[in-house]
C-alpha cells in the first residue's frame, strides 16, 4: 500500500489518481501507524510552508517522517518541507536535506508557472526520461542547490528540481501533473 500523506490543504486526489492508474493501492492518510506500515510514502504539497509544518506537528508527523525507512517522495512543497528552513513564513522544516528554501527574486514573473526542462539529471527516478522532456512547475520559493541535488532547473536562477538522500526523494515539479513523462517518474519511484 502506498500512503499519501493528507494535511488538509491541496490536491492530493490527482496524486492518488496517478498512483492508482499505475496499478498500486493507495491510502490517503495522516495516521502515524498507517504511514509507518506503508510500502512507500508520498508527501504531496501545495499551500504555505508554515501552515503545513504546523499541521505536521499537530499530527506528530514532524517526528515520524525523519525516522521512516521506506522510500519517501516529497512533491513541490513536500520537497521544500524536507529541507531545513524555508523563507516562506520563516519556517523551520524537517531538515532531511541540509538546504534552505528561498523566495525567487522579483526580477521576472513569479510564480515560476508552467513546463520546464531539467539539467544535470543524475537519479534513478529519471530512467526513460530525456533532457528534452518538460515537467510542470508552480512555485514562488525554491530549494537551493547542494550535495543532495540530483537535477537542476533554471528559472531566474538555477535551483534543485529534484533531491535525494538515502530513502528520501523530492521533486519540485508535479509528476502527477506532468503528463505521461510525469507518470514515468512516479512509476520509477513506485518500483524502487
Amino acid at each position: 500500500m502506498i500512503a499519501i500523506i493528507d494535511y488538509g490543504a491541496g490536491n492530493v486526489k490527482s496524486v492518488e489518481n496517478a498512483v492508482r492508474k499505475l496499478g498500486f493501492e493507495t491510502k490517503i492518510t495522516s495516521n502515524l501507524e498507517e504511514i509507518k506500515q506503508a510500502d512507500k510514502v508520498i508527501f504531496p504539497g501545495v499551500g504555505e510552508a508554515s501552515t503545513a509544518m504546523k499541521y505536521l506537528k499537530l499530527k506528530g508527523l514532524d517526528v515520524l517522517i525523519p525516522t521512516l525507512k521506506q522510500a519517501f517522495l516529497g512533491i513541490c512543497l513536500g520537497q521544500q518541507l524536507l529541507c531545513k528552513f524555508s523563507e516562506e513564513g520563516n519556517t523551520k522544516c524537517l531538515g532531511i536535506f541540509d538546504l534552505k528554501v528561498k523566495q525567487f527574486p522579483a526580477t521576472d514573473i513569479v510564480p515560476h508557472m508552467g513546463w520546464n526542462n531539467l539539467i544535470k539529471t543524475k537519479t534513478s527516478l529519471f530512467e526513460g526520461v530525456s533532457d528534452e522532456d518538460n515537467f510542470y512547475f508552480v512555485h514562488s520559493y525554491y530549494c537551493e542547490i547542494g550535495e543532495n541535488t540530483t537535477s537542476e532547473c533554471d528559472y531566474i536562477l538555477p535551483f534543485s528540481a529534484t533531491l535525494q538522500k538515502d530513502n528520501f526523494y523530492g521533486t519540485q515539479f508535479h509528476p502527477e501533473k506532468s503528463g505521461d513523462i510525469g507518470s514515468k517518474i512516479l512509476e520509477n519511484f513506485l518500483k524502487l
Partner: protein
Amino acid sequence: MLKKRIIPCLDIKDGRTVKGINFIGLRDAGDPVELAKKYVNDGADELVFLDITATLEGRKTLIELVEKLSLEINIPFTIGGGISSVDDVEALLKAGADKVSINSAAVRRPELVQEIAQQFGNQCVVVAIDTKNIDGEDYVFINGGKIKTELKTIDWVKTVTELGAGEILLTSMDFDGTKNGFDTRMLKNISQICQLPIIASGGAGKMEDFTEVFSETTATGALAASIFHFNEIKISDLKENLKQNKIAIR
C-alpha cells in the same frame, strides 16, 4: 527554459461544451471529457473549463465533471464560473481541480482572493478579468461582460496581485470572437505593471496570432476555444509552427 503554454478553454453548460461568439449565441461543441483527452493528446499544456451554468443542478453536475476530469487528465486544469466562496473552491479542489478562476465575485468582494490564497495557496487562484477599451482606457467588466465597472484594468491587476492571486487570465472583450489576433496593445499595457503570469485570451484566429502574442507581450500562456473545438487549428500543428518561429514550446 520555461515554455509558453497553449491553453484550450472549454465553456461548460450543464456538463456540455459550448462557446459563444462575443459572449452571445452558443453552439454545442461536444463532450468535455472527450475533448479534454483529445487536447491532452494533441499537446495542450493546461486546460481551462468555464462553467456558465446558473442552476444548482448544473453546479452539482460540474463537481461530477471535475471528478471525471481528474481521473482522465494528467496535466493541470482550472475551473471557473460562478465561484463566489471559499466553500465553492474547496469542493472543486477536493474533486480534483488544480486551480480555480474567479471573476465577478472577486470584483464584488476582493477579500475572496485573499481568503482563497491563504487557505489553498496563491498557485490555485487565477483571477479572470474581462476588459474592454472605452475612450482610450481599459475597464473591467463583470457578469460575463454585461456590466461595466468603474475599475480600470491596470488598477485591478495591481489590487489582485497584492491580495494573493497567482495568475491573471486576461480576456479582451474588444477582440474576443473576432479571430483578428490577440489584443497585443492591451496585453503589453497591462503586462508592464504585472509581476504575475498572464494568460492572453480573446481574438485567436490563426497560428501567427500565437507567435505574435508570445513575441510581442510577456504573456506566458495563450488561451483559445472555438478555433480548437471546430478543428480550425490543431494544437500539435500550432506547437510545431511556434517552434519553427523560435518560441519556447513543450
